């Protein structure tokens, strides 16, 4: 066995002989990934219901119908409450938002449908600012149900008859209106009045408008994951993110370990041996890559064995991404050793740098929630390529071609780290 192989073997033996540290290194990412994966829904496709409070101050047939429609929606977990209680529930984080239907809503809203200058009733939405993404969901579904129930009321002869007659009088009396437009509007209102009269004489609503204005389409949702018979598994993202994070932490230990070797005189003794600088640094990179790849494999082994994560894409691509990230980790450790001065100070700075890399890489929260400028920045962050690449090879089920870009970018960053390390490495103590 050559000197380089002896150094690599020694590093690997030393790393894996510290059983307690190894157990922590493996347990921490698995436990955290299990937590984050469960929070992301795990392997289940069931969407959790959004808790929402409704304050029906109107208590009209229209408002009651809206509340009933919300209750029947699988997206909402609706609880009715008075306004003070609803406000308290939002403040305490027990509901994400509260919808306040004002007094007179059922009377005013149908009028506003036909009369653009009529006063529009205002539905209040109280929302938790920490859950602002919920606001869009509530507004969207509320618009759907309000339009349906209000338009139903507008076409109902009992509720909307007077409204249509009143609006017709207003249009007929309005001055300054183009005569052709006035004629068209009056014809429209007359036709609605005839529909209402027919509805009233029939006794049961049959006309299309009597059911209210419904959404003119329906949706069919299909998950686009790796294979038809497999659904998205939240653990796949969590294990990619936590694996990247903790393997990078291992890279820090490699770098700090080299600084400690320097302090202990071991590095001096290695340098006294007939080994080139390339052999010495190369052995460190090689051993770091072997250790990182082994750790990542063990973490994904647990993900596959216990959390249902599968490599639905290219297995070769997955292995290439793991190896490229292992090399990246190893050169990151070398960079730390090259730029660091004392092990203690270096460790703190390196942990901070790693956490930034991990956050920007989308390991904790998806990058789509970042501001646009930050999303643009993350394209240059190698951890994002690692996470995206691992997801592509697992639940997205993409082929080998999808692995090349992440692998190439990580290899490029590894080369950069290695060059900077060689440039700044302090050879002479």
């Amino acid at each position, binding site marked *: 066995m050559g000197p380089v192989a002896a150094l690599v073997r020694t590093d690997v033996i030393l790393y894996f002989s510290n059983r307690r540290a190894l157990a922590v290194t493996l347990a921490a990412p698995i436990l955290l990934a299990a937590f984050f994966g469960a929070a992301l829904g795990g392997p289940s496709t069931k969407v959790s219901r959004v808790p929402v409070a409704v304050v029906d101050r109107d208590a009209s047939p229209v408002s009651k119908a809206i509340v009933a429609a919300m209750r029947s929606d699988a997206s909402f977990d609706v609880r009715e409450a008075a306004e003070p209680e609803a406000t308290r529930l939002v403040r305490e984080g027990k509901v994400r938002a509260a919808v306040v239907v004002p007094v007179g809503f059922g009377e005013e809203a149908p009028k506003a449908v036909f009369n653009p200058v009529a006063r529009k009733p205002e539905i209040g939405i109280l929302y938790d600012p920490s859950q602002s993404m919920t606001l869009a969901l509530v507004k969207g579904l509320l618009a759907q149900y309000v339009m349906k129930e209000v338009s139903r009321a507008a076409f109902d002869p009992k509720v909307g008859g007077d409204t249509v007659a009143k609006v017709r009088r207003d249009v007929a009396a309005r001055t300054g209106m183009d005569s052709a437009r006035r004629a068209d509007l009056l014809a429209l209102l007359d036709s609605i009045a005839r529909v209402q009269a027919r509805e009233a004489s029939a006794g049961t609503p049959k006309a299309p408008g009597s059911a209210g204005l419904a959404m003119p389409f329906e949706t069919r949702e299909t998950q686009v994951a790796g294979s038809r018979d497999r659904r998205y598994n939240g653990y796949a993202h969590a294990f990619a993110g936590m694996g990247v994070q903790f393997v990078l932490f291992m890279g820090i230990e490699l770098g700090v370990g080299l600084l400690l070797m320097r302090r202990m005189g071991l590095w*001096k003794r290695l340098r006294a041996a007939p080994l080139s600088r390339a052999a010495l640094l190369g052995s460190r990179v090689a051993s770091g890559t072997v250790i990182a790849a082994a750790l990542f494999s063990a973490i994904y082994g647990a993900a596959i064995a216990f959390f249902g994560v599968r490599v639905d894409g290219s297995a070769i691509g997955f292995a290439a991404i793991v190896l490229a990230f292992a090399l990246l980790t190893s050169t990151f450790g070398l960079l730390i050793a090259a730029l660091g001065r004392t092990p203690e100070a270096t460790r703190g700075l390196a942990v901070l740098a790693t956490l930034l890399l991990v956050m920007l890489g989308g390991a904790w929260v998806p990058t789509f929630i970042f501001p646009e400028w930050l999303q643009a920045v993350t394209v240059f962050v190698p951890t994002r390529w690692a996470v995206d690449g691992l997801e592509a090879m697992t639940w997205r089920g993409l082929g080998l071609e999808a692995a090349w870009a992440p692998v190439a970018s990580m290899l490029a960053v590894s080369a950069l780290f290695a060059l900077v390390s060689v440039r700044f490495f302090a050879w002479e103590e």
Partner: protein
Amino acid sequence: MLSARELWKSYDGKVAVGGISLDIGAGEIVGLLGPNGAGKSTTVSMLCGLISPDRGGVTIAGEPIGSDGSVLKRRIGLVTQEIALHENLGAARNLELFGELYGVTGRLLGERVAAALELVGLADRARSHPSTFSGGMKRRLNIACALVHDPDVVLLDEPTVGVDPQSRNAIFDNLETLRSRGKALLYTTHYMEEAERLCDRIVIIDRGRTIASGTQDELRRAVPGSAARVELEGAVDAELLALLAARGLTVRARSGASIEDVFLHLTGRELRD
């Protein structure tokens, strides 16, 4: 065996070593003495190829030491001042690693490891981790790591720091054994009695320059007006000495100063830390 000629090394314009020359022959122990900051460690680093001199050069058996990967480095063993061991590898495994780094493999490696452990008295602890060793045992293993590839030249940078007298004595025995096997040894130390016991020749350096060199007797003679050195049995004061001699008690007198006297005379008594 090892020859250094006019070694110069500066850091940030400050001269650390300024023209030091020395020779170490086979079967010889040369002491390199000097106060803190004298340039001992820099000199040792240049001798074993860890750092390149700004001027001058080092040869082994007439061959100049080259770059980092020079095969001539296989003929040098370095015992660092620090205990440079992998604490969580067994003693034999540490030795195997250093043997492999110097190109020793296979059965020869096993034999060399066993011989090195035997030499430093750790044969029965081959599988034990250094983390379980006493300070003296670690020091001995530290020396063994520099010997496992059977070098012709051994550079020892303060190898006895912090060890008890027994371990120190064992180390001295090891070094004398190496000398008897024809190895060339360079020994740096702060302890004058060590130099006195071990070294055939001594080089004293200060502020990066050689200020004296020679055998112990040559150095002693170089100190003008040095007092006679006496070894007494019993309590000591000036009157008592006269009385002892007058009363026929044994008083052994040796001519010349101790090496420590020489050292302090040449380098002064002020602290250098």
